[in-house]
C-alpha cells in the first residue's frame, strides 16, 4: 500500500507512539483489504467503551483501548483526537442503569469512561444516529463511521463516503485522520448492482422496514437500486429501511432515484453497470418478509415494547405521544423508548417525556437493548416497530419478538397482547 510522506512519518513514530500504533493498525487493515492507499478524513464515528470485564482484564482505559481499539499489544497513552470524532451508541443509560441489570460499579465505570472520551475530545453523542444530533456529513465527504444503520444512511441519503468500520479502525482514524481508500470511498464501487422493482405500495415505516429487510436478505452486501417508489419517504422511514437492509444483509449503500443523494435517475444509480439481477418486491415478498421477521414470536402475551431502533427522532416521539396521550400501559408491560440524549433533552423541553412517563413508559438515552445485551428483568415477549431490533434482540437475549407498526406496539402495551397483522 502506498503511503504519503505524512503517513510514513506517523508510521515512523514522528507524531508519537499512539499515532504510530494507530497507523500500524491502518496499514495492516489496508493491506488486508488490498487498498492502494489511505484517504484523509475529518469525520470519524467510533466506539470506545470499556466494560467491567475488559477493565478487570486490562486495568486501565489506556490499556483496554490499546488492545481493543487500535489492536496494539503495546499499551499507549491516548492523546486528544486529531479530527472530528464522535462516540456511537453505548451499552447503558446512566439514569436507568439498574433497569439494564447494571450496578453502581458499572455506572461509575461508565462515567469515568465518558470523562476519558471527553478529555480526548470525542463528542459524546452516544447514539446510532449522529446525523440526528449534529453530525450531518456533506455529499462527497470521506468519513470513517461504525454502526451499520448510520453507515448506510450517510452513504445513501447524504452521499457521504464511508465503509462500515469497526472499533479498531475508527479509533485509529481518530488519531491519524486517515482511513483506507477502499470500497465506498471509490466512486465506481458506489454504483448500483441489483435492480429492485417495487410492485406494491410502500407508504408506512412498517412497509419500509419490510422492504429493507427483504432487500438486505437478497442483495447481502451489494448495492441495490430501489425503483418505483411512489411516496417520498420521510427521514424516519428511510432510516428504518437502511437499518433493516443492513441487518438482514450487509447493505452499506443503496440508491432510490430522486431520493438518495447520488441518483437523480436510474442511469445515475447504475452508471456503467448492468444490473446483475432483477428483484421484485410485491405483495408476496412483503408477506414472506413479515413472516420471517415474526418467526421468533409464538406467545402473544407482550411484556416488553421496544421503540427507537435506530434511535427515535423528535418527530417519532411526537407521533408516539399522539398515540399514547390519555392512555395507560398494562400492568406488567415495560414500555421503553430509545433516543439520543439531545433528542431526549428536546422531548423533555417539549413535555413529551412526561406524556411517555404518564403512559407508564420510559424514555431512555445513550443505549439500546441489543447493544447493551439487556431487556427488562423477566420479560419474555417483545413487540417492536423496528425490523433491526426484531432481528437482533432474540439472538442477544433469547426474547421472542413481534414486528409491526408503532400503533400496533402501543396497542400491545395497552392490552398486553400482540394483535399485529400485515
Amino acid at each position, binding site marked *: 500500500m502506498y503511503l504519503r510522506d505524512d503517513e510514513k512519518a506517523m508510521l515512523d513514530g514522528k507524531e508519537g507512539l499512539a499515532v504510530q500504533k494507530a497507523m500500524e493498525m491502518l496499514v*495492516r487493515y489496508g493491506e*488486508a483489504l488490498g487498498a492502494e492507499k489511505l484517504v484523509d478524513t475529518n469525520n470519524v464515528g467510533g*466506539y470506545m467503551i470499556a466494560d467491567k470485564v475488559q477493565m478487570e482484564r486490562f486495568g486501565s482505559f489506556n490499556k483496554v483501548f490499546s488492545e481493543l481499539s487500535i489492536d496494539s499489544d503495546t499499551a499507549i497513552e491516548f492523546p486528544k483526537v486529531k479530527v472530528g470524532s464522535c462516540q456511537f451508541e453505548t451499552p447503558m443509560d446512566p439514569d436507568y442503569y439498574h433497569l439494564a441489570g447494571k450496578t453502581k460499579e458499572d455506572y461509575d465505570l461508565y462515567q469515568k469512561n465518558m470523562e476519558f472520551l471527553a478529555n480526548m475530545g470525542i463528542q459524546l453523542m452516544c447514539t446510532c444516529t449522529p446525523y440526528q444530533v449534529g453530525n450531518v456529513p456533506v455529499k462527497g465527504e470521506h468519513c470513517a463511521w461504525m454502526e451499520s444503520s448510520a453507515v448506510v444512511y450517510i452513504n445513501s441519503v447524504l452521499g457521504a463516503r464511508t465503509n462500515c468500520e*469497526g472499533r*479498531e479502525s475508527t479509533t485509529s482514524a481518530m488519531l491519524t485522520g486517515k482511513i483506507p481508500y477502499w470500497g465506498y470511498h471509490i466512486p465506481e464501487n458506489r454504483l448500483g448492482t441489483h435492480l429492485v422493482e417495487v410492485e406494491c405500495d410502500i407508504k408506512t415505516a412498517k412497509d419500509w422496514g419490510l422492504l429493507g429487510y427483504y432487500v438486505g436478505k437478497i442483495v447481502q452486501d451489494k448495492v441495490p437500486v430501489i425503483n418505483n417508489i411512489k411516496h417520498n419517504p420521510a427521514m424516519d422511514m428511510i432510516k428504518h429501511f437502511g437499518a433493516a437492509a443492513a441487518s438482514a444483509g*450487509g447493505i452499506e449503500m443503496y440508491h432510490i432515484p430522486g431520493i438518495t443523494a447520488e441518483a437523480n435517475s436510474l442511469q445515475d444509480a447504475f452508471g456503467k453497470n448492468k444490473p446483475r439481477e432483477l428483484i421484485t418486491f410485491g405483495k408476496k415478498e412483503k408477506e414472506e418478509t413479515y413472516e420471517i421477521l415474526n418467526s421468533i414470536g409464538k406467545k402473544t402475551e407482550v411484556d416488553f415494547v421496544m421503540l427507537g431502533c435506530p434511535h427515535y427522532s423528535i418527530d417519532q416521539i411526537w407521533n408516539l405521544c399522539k398515540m399514547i396521550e390519555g392512555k395507560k400501559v398494562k400492568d406488567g408491560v415495560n414500555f421503553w423508548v430509545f433516543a439520543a440524549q439531545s433528542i431526549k433533552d428536546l422531548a423533555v423541553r417539549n413535555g413529551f417525556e412526561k406524556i411517555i412517563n404518564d403512559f407508564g413508559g420510559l424514555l431512555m438515552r445513550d443505549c439500546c437493548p441489543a447493544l447493551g445485551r439487556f431487556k427488562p428483568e423477566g420479560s419474555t415477549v417483545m413487540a417492536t416497530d423496528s425490523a433491526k431490533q426484531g432481528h437482533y434482540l432474540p439472538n442477544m437475549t433469547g426474547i421472542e419478538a413481534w414486528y409491526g407498526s408503532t400503533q400496533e406496539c402501543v396497542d400491545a402495551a395497552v392490552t398486553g397482547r400482540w394483535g399485529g397483522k400485515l
Partner: protein
Amino acid sequence: MGKIILHGRKVVGGCVEGEALVTTETISGWGGIDPKEGTIIDLRHELAGEKFAGKVLVYQGAKGSSGWSGQFHEARLNNVAPLAMVFNETTTKIALGAVVTRVPAVTDLDQDPTKVIATGDWVKVDGDNGIVEVTKK
C-alpha cells in the same frame, strides 16, 4: 483421498491447519456470535448453535453490524477464535475482523470454498501465499 488446492489472496499471514466449519451464508458478528463461547447465536442462521472455536471457518462473508471486528477480537482474547478464515466476499468488516482476530485469512479463491470444502474436512491455510489445501474427510 487426494488434496484439493485453492489459490487466492492473502488477507492475514500465517499458516495453520485444522478441521473446517462451513456455511454458504454470511455471518454476523454483533448478534451473530457469542465471543465468550465461540459459537454462532444467530437464530436464523444455518449454523445456529455451532461452535467455530478452533475451526477453520469457511463462509460467504460478513454481514450486519460494525461490531463484527469487536466480537471476533473478543473471541480471540477469550481463546475461542477460529483457527483461520476462508471467505468469498471481502468487506471492511471481514478484513478488519480477520486482522484483529490475528488468524491466517485468505479470500478471492479460484473456486468457491463453501462449495469445495465441507464441514469436517481437514484444511491447511497458508495466509502468506494465499493457498488453501483441502483434505476431504
